[in-house]
């Protein structure tokens, strides 16, 4: 029994293939190669809706691999500023390693120098504008809070007074 193209409600191209196949080899059964696109389109539409809902145009900051951020319910949107990551493995200013936290506390000169360079670069790029002193501080949640506070003290001494503590936003 042959497959009727009309019974299958195929599209024009599939219809053409089907009738040609039936004309050429009358003894052979026609093979239907039509792809049902409805479910594919449905899936794509749902995916697009979901991704559009979760889409965010706010700036994102790089979170270092070994930094587990503390949870917060009152977190605000992240602002674009230099990122200081503090973990047990070390201290990174804009992804540049500066040594471990203990090393920094013993000899803070490289850290201070990096901050000064950052500040002078900003001043050079934005002449006539007051330095905002903003910095994103990412600290691992298991770190001693005194270490984080001491680092904040060093940041303050270098005029980085608006510290944005990176946290994990929870509802």
């Amino acid at each position, binding site marked *: 029994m042959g497959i009727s193209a009309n019974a299958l409600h195929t599209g024009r191209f599939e219809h053409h293939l089907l009738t040609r196949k039936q004309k050429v080899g009358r003894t052979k059964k026609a093979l239907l190669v039509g792809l049902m696109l409805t479910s594919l389109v449905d899936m794509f539409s749902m995916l*697009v809706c979901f991704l559009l809902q979760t889409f965010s145009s706010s700036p994102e900051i790089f979170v270092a691999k070994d930094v587990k951020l503390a949870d917060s319910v009152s977190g605000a949107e992240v602002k674009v500023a230099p990122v200081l990551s503090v973990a047990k493995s070390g201290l990174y200013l804009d992804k540049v390693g500066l040594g471990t936290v203990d090393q920094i506390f013993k000899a803070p000169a490289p850290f201070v120098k990096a901050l000064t360079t950052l500040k002078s670069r900003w001043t050079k790029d934005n002449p006539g504008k007051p330095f905002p002193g903003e910095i994103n501080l990412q600290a691992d949640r298991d770190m001693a*809070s005194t270490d*984080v506070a001491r680092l904040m003290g060093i940041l303050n001494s270098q005029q980085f007074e608006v510290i944005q503590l990176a*946290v994990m*936003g929870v509802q």
Partner: protein
Amino acid sequence: MSLKAKRELNSDLNLTPFIDLLSTLVCFLLISAVWIQVASMDLKQSHGTDGGAPTETAAVDVVLGKPGVATVILKMGARTLNRSEIKAASTPELVLELQKKIIAYKNLPAMKNGKIESVLVAPHADVIHGDMVKVLDGFRINGISNIGVKPSAGEK
């Protein structure tokens, strides 16, 4: 004109450009999707910039002791209005107690014309950063946005 010569009307919808568009959109949105919700908490380390404020401004100093313990000091200018110690079993309980304390301070007669503008937290070395953030979070929920951290409560 013969009716037999009439051509069939093709009413099929061409889905190819639609699928192309959807595929491109899916790829773009998947690449730009944010899976980790990083937020920020503003800390203002410098205080004392509100000299021209119309109301009297009060400040709260919180010394975080060993986990669950805190000393809260309410100050109005140079005067200490209240000092109390809170002992709780865990950090979440301590956060709740601190929130209650802030509400109690707001209702003090001495605070009739005053407003708690800032909180300065001094953590102990035994307090981990995650717990300190929970405490700061509690103050922000209570409407205090001018929060600072100072390193002086004690070393290990």
